[in-house]
Structure formats: structure tokens, C-alpha cells
């Protein structure tokens, strides 16, 4: 069985919009997978279904042989890091605390109450910050950092979870080209050196071809391409972006979900 498997996954939002339709996918461990597709195609929905931030309405998703359900999603999330377009850091806390947050799932409510972390957590957090080259900013407030640095803190938080899988939902969409490349190189390095599976939503086909082992593409909630970067020819690209799901722009809630 593949590391991640999606079987007949459907996602229908409360307003009736169907973002994923009968979706099947298998992903092998340790790969760097880029997900392409026009806005509203279901890329974010796909990633957010994998850690149940937006649970699938039908079908089965299993990670490492464990099927995701209402009772175990917290346990699964503990070892699935997520990197967001808007970084989703706690702005008023310092960088170190933002990374240590990745350890919270392992702790009881009592130790969390006093903001106390064991020494081993600090070692994990420091290693993560060294990995993203931000150890010197450990005690700065998160919102004092530049966008690229904040995204690297986001990656360090994911690393502090000691994940087997990192889901990156358009991690470079708010960054300038230089910071974008840094973040992509970093994720690629994490994947290659640590064997962590990375699934990344992207808007730039060039980056996908440059960094990914495998590219999948969605349009209107269905898989329209699945193959190696070499197989993604100009003609196939035109097909992927050919029909844009217009309807989503009339649903403010969904535009937000896909922003």
C-alpha cells in the first residue's frame, strides 16, 4: 500500500460547492510532489483534507496505513507538518515559541498552561531553526521578520513536529522571487536529506518542473495530469489551465478557502 492513499474522496462545502470529485491518488514516501491547477481547482481542499483541517465529506484518506477519521485526526496531524501561504504564525510570540508550538501535541494541558517546555524540545526547536538558518532570530518577535523569514519559521515549526509528511499550501504565493527560491530549495533539501514527503501547491509551472519528482494537476476537482516533470509539455499545460472554474468567484467563502 502506498504511503498516502486517497480513495473516492469527495469534498462538498456546506454551501453545496463540490471541490473534490471522486478523487483517487497514491503517493509514495519520500517524494517531492507539486500540485498544479488554476485557482479554485481544489488544490487547497486536497491538502486540507489530508490533515482534516477541512475533512473530506466522503471517501477514505489514509496516511502510513492509518485511515483518517474523526477520532484520530489530532494524532495524525501531530506528525504532519503544514506550511501556509500566510505563514499562520502567532505574531506576538517570539520565533522560538512559534517553533516550540510544533511540540505541543506531545504535552499535557498542565505543562502547556505555564508555557513550559522540556530541554529536549528546545534541542529539537534549535535544530529546526538551524535547518532554516534562523537561529540568530530565535528571540525576535515573529512579526518583526521579513516574509521569507516568517515562512522559514513556518517550516521550522513543521520540522519541530518531526513529521513524515509536510503539506505546503502555496507557500511562496506571498513571497518575492528570491525568498520563493529559498523556501523551495529548503523544502527540496528537507525532502531529499530527511526523506520527508513534501506535497506542495504551486502556481508556477516552472518551479514545479524544476523541483518536483512528480507533478499532479487538478481542474474543477478532478485529476487532469499525473506524471513526471518531463511529461508536462506545453500542450498538457494548456489543457490544465484551459478551463478555469469560474463559479468559485461567486462564492466568497470559497475564494477565501483557496486564497
Amino acid at each position, binding site marked *: 500500500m502506498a504511503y498516502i492513499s486517497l480513495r473516492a474522496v469527495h469534498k462538498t462545502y456546506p454551501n453545496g460547492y463540490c471541490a473534490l470529485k471522486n478523487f483517487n491518488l497514491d503517493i509514495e514516501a519520500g517524494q517531492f510532489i507539486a500540485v498544479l491547477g488554476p485557482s479554485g481547482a481544489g488544490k487547497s481542499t486536497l491538502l486540507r483534507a489530508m*490533515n482534516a*483541517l477541512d475533512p473530506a465529506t466522503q471517501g477514505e484518506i489514509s496516511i502510513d496505513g492509518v485511515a483518517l477519521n474523526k477520532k484520530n*485526526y*489530532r*494524532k*495524525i*496531524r*501531530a*506528525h*504532519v*507538518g*503544514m506550511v*501556509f501561504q*500566510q*505563514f*499562520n*504564525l*502567532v*505574531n*506576538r*510570540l*517570539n520565533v522560538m*515559541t512559534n517553533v516550540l*508550538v*510544533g511540540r*505541543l*501535541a506531545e*504535552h499535557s*494541558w498542565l505543562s*502547556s*498552561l505555564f*508555557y513550559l517546555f522540556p530541554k529536549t524540545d528546545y534541542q529539537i526547536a534549535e535544530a529546526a531553526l538551524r535547518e532554516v538558518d534562523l537561529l540568530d532570530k530565535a*528571540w525576535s*518577535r515573529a*512579526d*518583526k521578520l521579513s516574509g521569507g523569514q516568517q515562512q522559514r519559521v*513556518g517550516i521550522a*515549526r513543521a520540522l519541530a*513536529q518531526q513529521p513524515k509528511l509536510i503539506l505546503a499550501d502555496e507557500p511562496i504565493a506571498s513571497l518575492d522571487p528570491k525568498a520563493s527560491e529559498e523556501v523551495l530549495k529548503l523544502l527540496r533539501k528537507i525532502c531529499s536529506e530527511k526523506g520527508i514527503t513534501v506535497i506542495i501547491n504551486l502556481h508556477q509551472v516552472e518551479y514545479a518542473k524544476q523541483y518536483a519528482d512528480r507533478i499532479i494537476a487538478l481542474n474543477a476537482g478532478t485529476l487532469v495530469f499525473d506524471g513526471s516533470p518531463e511529461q508536462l509539455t506545453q500542450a498538457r499545460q494548456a489543457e490544465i489551465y484551459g478551463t478555469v472554474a469560474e463559479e468559485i468567484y461567486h462564492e466568497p467563502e470559497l475564494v477565501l478557502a483557496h486564497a
Partner: protein
Amino acid sequence: MNPSWYWPTPNGKPPLTAVLSVVLPIAVLALTASTVDISTNKIFSALPRMLDFTRNLWVMPDWAYLPQLGEKMLETVEMTLLATALAVVLSMPLGILAAKNASPHPWIFRMTRDLLSLIRSLPELVWALVFVSALGLGPLPGIMALALVTVGFMGKFIAESIEVVDFKAIEGLDSTGCTKFQSILYAMLPQAVPDFIGSLLYILDHNLRAASILGLVGAGGIGYDMVMSMRLFNYERIGMIALSIYALVTLLDRLSDVFRQKAIGGNLNVH
């Protein structure tokens, strides 16, 4: 009307809601003015008496009263600080339960909200009357009354500042597999800190003024002296009391400005 000027609406006319929000309050005011006995006549005929009162204030202060004034002002400040501190401790958990996004269940949210508005529905003075009749005269019933009403307000303020916290940080926490309790502690509360401090400073200001009139019903503070000297036309004291309350409120206001700047500007870090 100059035809080249239009409102920024599709038809160039002012929006209905804007018109109503100006017209309706004016209509309500016009209708109610007579029932609450507002008349310009009455206001103008009272002017000489007001002037009389003001003139009477210009007398030599009663210096012998100074030690007692100091003692009573100190008591007022102590009541304010104690009541506010007590209220903050009590209102923190209630505020979390009363925030829609932090409450463990919609019913708990609803019930806590209703409890808080029940507490707020009576002013400090009325609660003070209740506590004075139960505990006797003195600052203790005053502190209890003040703390209770402050819980009502502070709980609501805390809940509201938690509700407007940016959802992105909360989602970031949720994605790591932590519990709701942890995400309240690490995402909601830190982000709500500037708002908390803003409301806390406002409440301190309000409580100082509230504590200074609780003496009216025998619940401690400067209020008793103030009311007695008013009733006895003891102008030598009224001026002193009013001035010292003014000085204290102003001092607190200055201090809170400095503190607010630091807290919201980020110099006051959580760590």
C-alpha cells in the same frame, strides 16, 4: 442642488441606511425630549444657581481635613486595585468560555454570555447596597460590588477580543495536532493581549471613578465624605475632594497612555 455632485452609489442618491441612521435618531430625540422634561427655560433659569454654587467653591480649603482626605483617597485607590485584580482573575476563564471561537460548546457560550449580562444589568451602587446589607458598612462590600460588576464587563471584553483574533494563527496551531485548550493558550490569548490591556486600562479608569462614589451607600472610599460635605454645604471640603479625584484620574490616564504605547507598540513582549 448642484447637479454635478453625486453620492458614490449606483443611482447617485444617498444610501437608505445612511439616511435612516441620521433621520431616525433625530426623530426619536425630538419625540422623547418632552417626556423627560427637557426644556430650555428650565436650563436657563438654573444658571444663576449654578453660578452661585461655583462662587461658593472659592473658599479657603479646610487644611485640617487633609490627613483624612489622604486616607480616604488611598482607600479608594486600594479598593479600585483590589477589585480590578480580583475581577481580572475571575473574568479570564469566564471570558474564554464566553468567546464563540474558544467556548467548548455553544450552550456554554450562551450561558456564560447570559450570566455576564445578568451581572452587568445592575450598577455597582445597587450591588454595593446588597453587599452592605449583608456584610455591614466598610470597604469590603464596596470591593465585592466593584469586582462583581467588573467581572461582567471584563468577561465580555475578553470574550470579544478573543473573537476578533486572526484565525490564521489558530489554524496554524490546529495543524500541529494540538488541543483546543492549547490553541487558546498559544494562539488566541497572545494575539488578544493588546485588546486586553486596552480594556483593562479603561476598566481601571472607570473603577476609580466608581469607587469614589460607592461611599454614597456606605461601601467605603471617598464617596461618603463627598456626599456629606455636599449635603452640609461644606464648600471648604468639596473643592479639595473634587480636585484630588481629578488629579488621581488624570494621573492614571497619563500612566495608562504610556503603558498602552509600550504594550501595543511591541516593546512589552510576552517573553
